[in-house]
């Protein structure tokens, strides 16, 4: 078990990062910190999937002169490019909602917002 984890240290590291983000999302009260936690979780997933495509001694998957096998897997990289753009979109929408909440209620602390009702 420990040996398998040691071989897959990259994956284990992204899981630790994921848990840090999850902690921020559930334990912090400040809405901006919650969304930062969400972004950390997204980064952990991106790191995990890109690490899945790494090949030992692999080059960037760019053909043309001087290209030599093996190449890293291009599909995880392309998928993560899509994921990053979607993450940016959700973050922009979340932050604009936070701005709106701050304007309407004067606070962005989740516990204070709960008392306001």
């Amino acid at each position, binding site marked *: 078990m420990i040996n398998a984890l040691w071989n*897959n240290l990259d994956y284990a590291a992204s899981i630790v990062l994921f*848990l840090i983000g999850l902690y921020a999302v559930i334990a912090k009260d400040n809405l901006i910190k919650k969304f930062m936690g969400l972004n950390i979780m997204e980064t952990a997933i991106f790191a995990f999937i890109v690490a899945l495509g790494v*090949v*030992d001694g692999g080059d960037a998957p760019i053909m043309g002169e001087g290209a030599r096998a093996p190449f890293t897997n*291009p599909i995880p990289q392309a998928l993560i490019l899509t994921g990053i*753009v979607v993450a940016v979109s959700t973050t*922009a929408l979340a932050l*604009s*909602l936070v701005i709106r909440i701050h304007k309407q209620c004067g606070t962005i602390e989740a516990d204070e917002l709960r008392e306001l009702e």
Partner: protein
Amino acid sequence: MKKALVSALLILTAIPLLLAVGQLPPHGSAKSPAYEHVSAYYLEYGAEEAGAENIVTDVILNYRGFDTNGEVTVIFTALAAVMGVLLLGRESRHPVEQPTYPPSIVVRFIVRLLAPFIAMFAIYVILNGHVSPGGGFQGGTILGALAIALTLVLGENEARRLIPEGARPWLQAAAPLTFVGIGLAGLTDVGVYLGFPTVETLTWVRTMWLLMLEIGIGLGGAVIISSIFWTMEGER
């Protein structure tokens, strides 16, 4: 109490994840299942078949063009939603004349000095996405960051002159519009939406279409990022 609950939840999440990671094929192995099927095909034939030497560009713009079409629509929708959330119910918009805290002369000088080089690098990244690392999204982000830096240092009015008021709505929709354009070109030419001509001798047409998509994504991405920033910044 709350702390104990949170740590229990975190540990309960960690255990299955770590167990699963222990079962994955070793990191960096060329024999992992993810590497053996589709990606082997893309790596072998992608450069001739899809029109770009950078296989990642081939995958996002040609093989998975539908996916990217949806993706640029998502970021355009995000801009629309941000504007809807923030602009609704606002009486009138006063662009911020000067930054609230005027930056020092050193900052102004450095940003003015670097701006043309940043713009040049962004255009280089956009136009070389098919032969080197880079592409529309990356270059567009650099251009958007340039617009944001100019807004922070020189004020919003100065930065807004970069993008003419009349062309802005069209530029904000540039990426989805380019995709629809190329998609319709594919529809008339090949009979499939977003289909690329497959004839051996037409590699340059495929490369041209990829380049047009990159330019559309780059311009659209830059304008969307700076518009989101300006919409948020007007809110004080």
